[in-house]
């Protein structure tokens, strides 16, 4: 448990390197919600192959690595109502805000984007409040 932060740091650096490659090679910002959202609502039709390839890599390769590691735990709640509500909120929210943890968080903060910093402040604040309400007050998660 006490070495989790080292894995966090190493994994984080790998995430940052991925974003750096995307920017320096393809001149694109590695925002998961924007890339997926563009495929879903049709706004990313012109470069759908690149988007689909990115999502394919993101889906396939961690699955293989997890398998080689002997499986990975997501500990996702079994409460489907909670998951549906959460998924809808994440889907609508990230598209309205034009970004999520990767786009606003990693890519935005690293270029000192005010929008990225403000967005991150709001989603972390709302996330913390959500855990307080749904875990400690209501006890549904």
């Amino acid at each position, binding site marked *: 448990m006490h070495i989790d932060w080292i894995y966090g740091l190493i994994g984080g650096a790998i995430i940052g390197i991925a974003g750096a490659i995307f920017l320096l090679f393809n001149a694109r910002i590695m925002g*998961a919600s924007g890339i997926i959202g563009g495929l879903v609502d049709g706004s990313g039709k012109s470069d759908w192959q690149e988007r689909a390839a990115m999502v394919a890599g993101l889906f396939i390769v961690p699955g293989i690595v997890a398998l080689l590691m002997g499986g990975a735990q997501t500990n996702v709640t079994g409460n489907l109502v909670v998951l549906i509500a959460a998924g809808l909120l994440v889907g609508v929210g990230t598209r309205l805000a034009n970004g999520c943890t990767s786009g606003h968080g990693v890519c935005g903060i690293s270029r000192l984007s005010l929008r990225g910093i403000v967005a991150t402040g709001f989603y972390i604040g709302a996330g913390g409040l959500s855990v307080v309400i749904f875990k400690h007050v209501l006890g549904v998660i």
Partner: protein
Amino acid sequence: MRVLVSFIVGATFGVGLLISGMTNTNKVQGWLDIFGAWDPTLAFVMGGAIVPMAIAWQLTKTRKPVFAESFPSPPDPKIGRNLVIGSTLFGAGWGLAGLCPGPAVASLSYGGIGGLTFMAAMLLGMLIAPRVRTRLDQMATAS
């Protein structure tokens, strides 16, 4: 080549998410849970990711992209209503399930029925988001 780079980026991003523990919802919710057993991991992940990314942004000032004409233009500094409303809604869902879009895709193959349910709802949310945006804009002009 751009398509191949995109695949490699997605793969690398996903492996980073897996290694860092960010596809484990307990670690995400543990970080957000300041009144519980607080888990600092997410801060290390963010810090670890921001460093290479900041170096890359510096490099964009003097170089040209390898497979593109030019780098993305500087972001619009305007803090709009949608940015605040959207981020708040996103955060509420993020705390509720412990999943955000990147880890949701990365863990789809090992996240079971729960991961699939979240993904289906998230995609539906993304599909209706343009309509929500139009509605919010109408409300803003009406008031």
